[in-house]
């Protein structure tokens, strides 16, 4: 296997090297900086595909690497991926070049810094998905904030500074309590270091579990974001430049759900199962609330931003129901959301590049002016509202089916969100694409350029491909999810009433 023993560290080093190289590149040569950014992100993507080909569909951690970091405290640089993280990693390496290409001509100032921050952000995101040590996880989790903060604050729109600072403070406030929880966990379990595998072997006192789970859940709920911790999201998404929104929606929001699955649930199984109904309730409120707010947005980017609250609500419902089916659906839905919402943000950005407005009322009848744009926008919209044949359907279907046994009432309420999603997306599409061209400014809009097509076609292709060939993906996700669900359920349920748990016998 050779190189595959170092694949994960190579995947971290390559974009980091890219950032350094771009930082040293001559400032005047903007074209070189863009090309280097693209080259390094594409190379990272290509390298990450080796993970897919080398991945075995089993539950165990793979491509594991471990180096001593602070040996006196048992902290090691411990990396690995399993079915939970594999596709999120690919999503990250895929969306980074897409986002760079998407903002190829819309970022004109400080191109060098832009490319450096995008690549550093990629390192941070990959590190979070790779980390098998809590200390390492936290380092990447927090370090990721800095490039994102700059992306919003420097290249964002009107209220960018407010949005950037709000994003930073909100996320940091959530995660610092998790840091204290790490320290308490370390002390109470008497573990040597912060290795996840080591900590999982040491059960935590149920009373303490509740508080620690709460600290973790706060950090992750803000990141998801779950209602009522979502208020940073519309600001950050709307003010961020297109590339920032794509990465934010595509990858950063997944960290919350991933954190729940990777850390919070397995470390504190009893507390997690106890709190699951509350998480599900907040998730469903988020689904309906996000959809209702989307319905009344006059601004396309805000509409897409609020739709994320709704979509991520589905993910959290699947996580809370915690059956193999629902969690597999949640992981799948994270991928779908990354692709369809990423594409929506890119397309809204393309309209903005042309008209410098995102007001739905400013558009209308674009189908006749920009046929390619209209066709792709429709397809991305359909993927976002989970029409069968598209990726979104698979994810939402698995979540709803898998959650039925645990929370039938919530599933019914969530289905309302599916209908509302169809309403707000289709209504937006109708107002933007169809009818007469009412605004003379829209009459001469150029259709998609080859570069823009190159950005969108892979996304649309994936949206369809993942809708039809979903088993190719779920096959690798499922073993890890099944093992996770089994471990948490057996550790979380007191022996005497294990049989009474409704979802203990998972319906697969």
């Amino acid at each position, binding site marked *: 296997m050779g190189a595959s023993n170092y694949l994960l560290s190579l995947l971290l080093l390559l974009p980091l090297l890219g950032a350094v190289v771009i930082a040293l590149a001559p400032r005047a040569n903007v074209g070189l900086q863009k090309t280097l950014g693209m080259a390094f992100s594409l190379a990272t993507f290509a390298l990450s595909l080796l993970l897919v080909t080398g991945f075995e569909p089993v539950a165990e951690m793979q491509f594991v690497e471990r180096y*001593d*970091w*602070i*040996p*006196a*405290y048992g902290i090691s640089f411990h990396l690995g991926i399993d079915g939970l993280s594999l596709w999120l990693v690919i999503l990250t390496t895929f969306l980074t070049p897409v986002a760079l290409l998407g903002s190829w001509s819309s970022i004109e100032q*400080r191109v060098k810094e832009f490319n450096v921050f995008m690549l550093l952000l990629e390192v941070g995101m990959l590190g979070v998905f790779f980390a098998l040590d809590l*200390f390492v996880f*936290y*380092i*990447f989790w*927090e*370090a990721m*904030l*800095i490039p994102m*903060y*700059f992306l919003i*604050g*420097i290249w964002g729109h009107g209220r*960018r*500074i407010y949005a*950037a*600072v709000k994003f*930073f*403070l909100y996320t*940091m*406030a959530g995660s*610092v*309590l998790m*840091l*204290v929880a790490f*320290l*308490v966990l*370390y*002390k109470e379990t008497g573990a040597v270091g912060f290795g996840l595998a080591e900590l999982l072997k040491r059960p935590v006192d149920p009373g303490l579990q509740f508080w620690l789970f709460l600290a973790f859940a706060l950090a992750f709920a803000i990141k998801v974001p779950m209602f009522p911790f979502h208020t940073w999201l519309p600001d950050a998404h709307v003010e961020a430049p297109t590339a920032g929104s794509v990465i934010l929606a595509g990858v950063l929001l997944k960290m919350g759900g991933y954190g729940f699955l990777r850390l919070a649930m397995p470390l504190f199984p009893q507390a997690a199962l106890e709190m699951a109904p509350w998480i599900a309730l907040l998730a469903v409120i988020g689904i309906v609330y996000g959809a209702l707010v989307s319905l009344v947005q006059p601004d396309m980017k805000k509409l897409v931003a609020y739709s994320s609250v709704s979509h991520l609500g589905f993910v959290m419902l699947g996580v809370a129901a915690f059956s193999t089916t629902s969690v597999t659906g949640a992981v799948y839905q994270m991928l779908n959301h990354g692709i369809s919402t990423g594409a929506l943000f890119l397309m809204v950005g393309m309209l903005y590049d042309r008209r410098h407005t995102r007001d739905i009322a400013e558009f209308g009848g674009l189908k006749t002016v920009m046929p390619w744009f209209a066709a792709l926008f429709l397809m991305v919209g359909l993927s976002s509202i989970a029409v069968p044949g598209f990726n979104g359907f698979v994810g939402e279907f698995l979540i709803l089916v898998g959650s039925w046994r645990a929370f039938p009432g919530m599933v019914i309420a969530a289905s309302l969100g599916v209908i509302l999603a169809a309403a707000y997306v289709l209504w937006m599409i109708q107002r933007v694409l169809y009818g007469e061209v009412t605004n003379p400014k829209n009459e001469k809009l150029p259709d998609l350029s080859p570069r823009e097509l190159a950005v969108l076609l892979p996304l649309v292709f994936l949206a369809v491909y993942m809708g039809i060939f979903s088993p190719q993906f779920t096959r690798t996700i499922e073993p890890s999810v099944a093992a996770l669900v089994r471990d948490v359920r057996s550790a979380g349920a007191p022996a005497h009433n294990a049989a009474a748990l409704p979802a203990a016998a998972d319906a697969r």
Partner: protein
Amino acid sequence: MFAVDLRPLLPALIVAITALVVLLAQAFTPKGSRSPSMGLTVTGLAGALLLSLTMAADARYGRGATTGGTYVADDFALFFHVLLIGLALMATLLSPAYYRENGGERGEFYTLMLFSLVGMLGLVSTTEMISMFVALEIMSVALYALAGTRRDQIESQESALKYFVTGAFASAFLLFGMALLYGLAGSTQLARVARGVASASPEQVPLAVLGCGLLIVGFGFKVASVPFHMWTPDVYEGAPTTVTALMAAGVKAAAFGAFLRVFPGSLPALREEWVPALAALAAITMVIGNLGALAQSNLKRMLAFSSVAHAGYLMSGMVGQSEAAGQAVLFYLVAYGAVNMGTFGLLASLSKGGREPLSLQDVAGLGERRPALAAALTVFLISLTGVPISAGFVGKFYLFGAAVNAGYTSLAIVGVLMSVVSAFYYLRVVVAMYMREGEGEDAWAAPEASARLSLLVAVVVTLGLGVWPAPVLDLARAAALAL
């Protein structure tokens, strides 16, 4: 026989001799020719640094106690030697340009700075209370004068006077506390005090507790903990910026060194009494320091309040068990020292024609005009906030870890929440540098080579300790074990 092994004293002696040589050289330099002060100072400090490093690396050379057991060169003292001499070296490299732009280079600066360093070295090396007091005074008196070296400026004079008056108060408290402990133990040797306190009879305990309390007040003044912090903003603001850097980085480190020697080192018997007091002080120091910094528009005042807040973080580490506490505090002092020297040094090195960047408007647009300097300042501010990947994060991780391990989880919670508050005011500077346009012409100087070297060292230490903290953590642990 009167044979004293002076080798443990050698680094401090070299510094003291350098101070005298610089003083004489200044007097004999003809008017108009270049002053050799800086070259001599750098040479002397480099020699002392090399010697300390050798002593630290080789356990056979120059270790042990001297002058009747009052002065020791152990792992703890040598750890501080390297840190303090390093900081003084950085301050020396930063100073000439600053003084040239703000009122003439003077030889006194070097002499006084070296004398204050002698005091700092003594403070961390002595194991006897009278010597400790003398060292503290050597350090402080030199600093009172240094704070006033910009004689043309009223703020500088105010700073010197305020520092002197409050410093004298602090010394009085410290001295009275020492006297009470002496009365109890019958000796000023810390080892004997420790034994005396441990075997104190029930009616003696109140005396010991009172002595402890007075010592906390005295050290509280020196490390700028709430409620003994009132002097900090005015003194930091008025003093010449490179002197402020030395105060924030060096004095705090030396004072915490003595604090550690006395409290966890010599008064473990009274842990039950002083740990809760220290924890309470740490909590209010973190809160008041950070909230105070929020309200500041002057960067030097903001950093002064941030220095108060950091005294709180350090004190919350001290409530831990002695070894873990000492290690965390020592590591954080290195991180904090490098960062503060870097931050103040960067502001100082930009000063031109009597002005230095003191407001957010002054640093606006720095990200575009001076990308390297703005990046360096961003690294320092990130470290002060305690965000990875920086020395500040690892440091805070261990400080709060020590507090949690000692059962003070609430203190860690206050600490991390206050770190979030601190993110707000540190970020304001980053926002100004990168997200606002600079107005008018770039009015700041280009830092000269020596200053750039100093800043580079600060950046390398800050990032280096964030990425690879293990070696320094191990050294800090070994040093803490020597207590």
